[in-house]
């Protein structure tokens, strides 16, 4: 049995643990759903290394997420754990899983559309963001920025409910 094969059950177990570690700012999503866990490796030193990519440059949850991940893995007996931050390639909402998008909608946040780098945001905005509550496409943007860095504020003109939209980035 190679070292890689021996490490595999520990890495698999770590992925399962992280599937229950929630994003403190959008607690509908786990850090795995969010797509910020780029890899988990068992190092020769015996430590488990988790590679994280930050969502926004100034996201104040980054440090809390790191601490929560370390605590969860150590609590599951998978330590020692170390976290490495990897900036490139930059995180994109395209990395949010299909499961994550479903959870966002259920939570009342409209999931992000596809990221189209070349299209000006002004044009993107015209693409309808369906209301996560009633499904209507008759919605309007109130503000490009919301309660957290990753969201915009919208209003549904059909059911009259305000809602948040996870911005494509």
């Amino acid at each position, binding site marked *: 049995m190679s070292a890689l094969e021996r490490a595999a059950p520990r890495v698999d177990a770590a992925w399962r643990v992280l599937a229950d570690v929630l994003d403190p700012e959008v607690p509908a999503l786990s850090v795995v759903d969010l797509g910020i866990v780029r890899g988990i490796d068992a190092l020769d030193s015996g430590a488990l290394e988790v590679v994280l990519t930050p969502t*926004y*440059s*100034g996201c104040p949850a980054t440090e809390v997420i790191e601490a929560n991940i370390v605590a969860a893995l150590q609590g599951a007996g998978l330590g020692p754990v170390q976290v490495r931050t990897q900036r490139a*390639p930059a995180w994109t909402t395209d990395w949010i899983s299909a499961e994550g998008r479903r959870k966002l909608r259920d939570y009342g946040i409209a999931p992000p559309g596809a990221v189209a780098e070349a299209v*000006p945001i002004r044009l993107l905005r015209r693409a309808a963001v369906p209301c996560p509550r009633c499904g209507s496409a008759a919605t309007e943007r109130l503000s*490009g*920025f919301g309660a957290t860095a990753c969201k915009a504020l919208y209003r549904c003109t059909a059911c009259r409910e305000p809602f948040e939209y996870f911005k494509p980035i």
Partner: protein
Amino acid sequence: MTSSIALKPNADAQYVLRLADTCLVWSHRLAEWCGHAPVLEEDIALANHALDLLGQARALLTRAGQLEGQGQDRQYSEDQLAYLRDERDFVNVTLAELPNGTNGRGDFAFTVLRNFVLSSWALLMWQHLAPSRDAELAAIAGKAVKEARYHREHAADWVIRLGDGTEESALRMQAALDRLWPYTNELFDSDEVDRAAAASGLGPDGASLREAWLADMQTVLSEARLPLPPKSAYRSEARCGRHSEHMGRLLAEMQVLQRSHPGGRW
């Protein structure tokens, strides 16, 4: 009082430090709006913009500290660089440090115009930094360029809405534009630091961004029905350490805690 740190920045460190300081000081000015913006949505938007800039500044300061410490027996952290440098060692552009308004009152017209002018410039800067030979700088730019697109778009929306708004809003916007325009020259100044960066593939010479930036200004300002002010011969020089009279007060507020409670954590 904790004594100030003295830097010996090489050209690479100085180049990154200029960008870092512009993000930091601009972030500080935007954060001053927190709790005071004209409407709640805008209060939130300006704070979000400030937070993105602060995150960019932190990453850039860390990188600048690493570059500055090369070949030395010490390396300054992001906090040391932000809190323990004297005014002459800050190298942001002057436009970023100007107060949000006059006589202590915030001027929303000036704020959105400055955001538009600087975001448009920052967006170009990040795009040109993405292929930098410095992998860390390239990675910071790869993230920041996505954020800057939202900043520029938001600011441009306000410039159009207020410029092409009421008689009063148009008057205030034109006055703010005329006031800040002479300071835009500095964004495209070029010295040995810029030329070395361009030659070595670290990042663009600021002067090379002017044409694309001006095209963006013309498009949006014409939609906003705001005539472009005449070209000015004025030269501000904060990016070389020679600041406006406003920088001392800004630093006093930004640095007071670390200066009076050295190493304090909370």
